[in-house]
């Protein structure tokens, strides 16, 4: 399990970095799918198989397919790719890079103050669904309202 975790973590990292530096939209999408799938593997390694399934089905499946459809509709050609390359100037990365490095340093400095190991005991579908349809029922309803609103908004926005 521990091997699975670290391997998947490295894959996720590399794939994510590839997403943000790639110039081709479709390539970037595929890297993103890889990243999401490896995160799904990490979930599995952490003992959350239900979350891993949802990550694979909803994120890597549904959402990314949606992205892909839009990319095909837009049909961005070689011109866009050249443009992307022109925008990739090192000096643009200096400011954001510094800020973000600072943020990361802060986060890790907080995290390394404790040292607790995780023993991956599986948290099953049953536990989650008991919570979902028990105390979190209202949140589920709200989430469904959010999805409905997203549906209506997307339909309206994408209309000609």
């Amino acid at each position: 399990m521990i091997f699975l975790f670290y391997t998947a973590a490295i894959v996720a990292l590399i794939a994510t970095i590839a997403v943000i530096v790639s110039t081709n939209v479709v390539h970037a999408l595929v890297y993103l799918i890889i990243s999401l799938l490896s995160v799904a593997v990490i979930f599995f390694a952490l003992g959350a198989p239900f979350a891993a399934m949802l990550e694979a089905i909803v994120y890597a499946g549904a959402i990314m397919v949606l992205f892909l459809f839009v990319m095909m509709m837009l049909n961005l050609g070689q011109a866009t790719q050249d443009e992307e390359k022109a925008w990739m100037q090192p000096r643009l990365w200096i400011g954001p890079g510094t800020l973000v490095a600072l943020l990361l340093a802060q986060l890790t400095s907080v995290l390394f103050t404790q040292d607790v190991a995780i023993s991956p005991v599986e948290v099953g579908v049953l536990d989650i669904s008991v919570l979902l349809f028990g105390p979190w029922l209202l949140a589920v309803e709200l989430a469904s309202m959010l999805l409905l609103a997203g549906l209506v908004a997307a339909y309206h926005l994408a209309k000609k």
Partner: protein
Amino acid sequence: MESIPYEHGLILAAILFVCGLVGVLTRRNIVFVLMSLEIMLNACGLAFVVASSRWQHAEGQVMFLMILTLAAAEVAVGLGLIIQMYRRFHTVDISVLNEMKG
């Protein structure tokens, strides 16, 4: 079963989040910005699942489900906006859309 250090999971989430943030800050193509946002949301979900495992509690995964829903809705609306933007301005460069200035 070997145990995974708790903070390693969180640090992975932090790094993924920061990568997404770099993407949001540097890319001019709105499709990449949206993808970077997805990465950030996903990193948050990862942090919740790690916490869920750490405390042996299912509520972290419930939160992950909520984030998933949020991401789905956000992507739907965001992609709709991208389509609309491309139709109007024939570009995916967000720097062009700077008319709402003071």
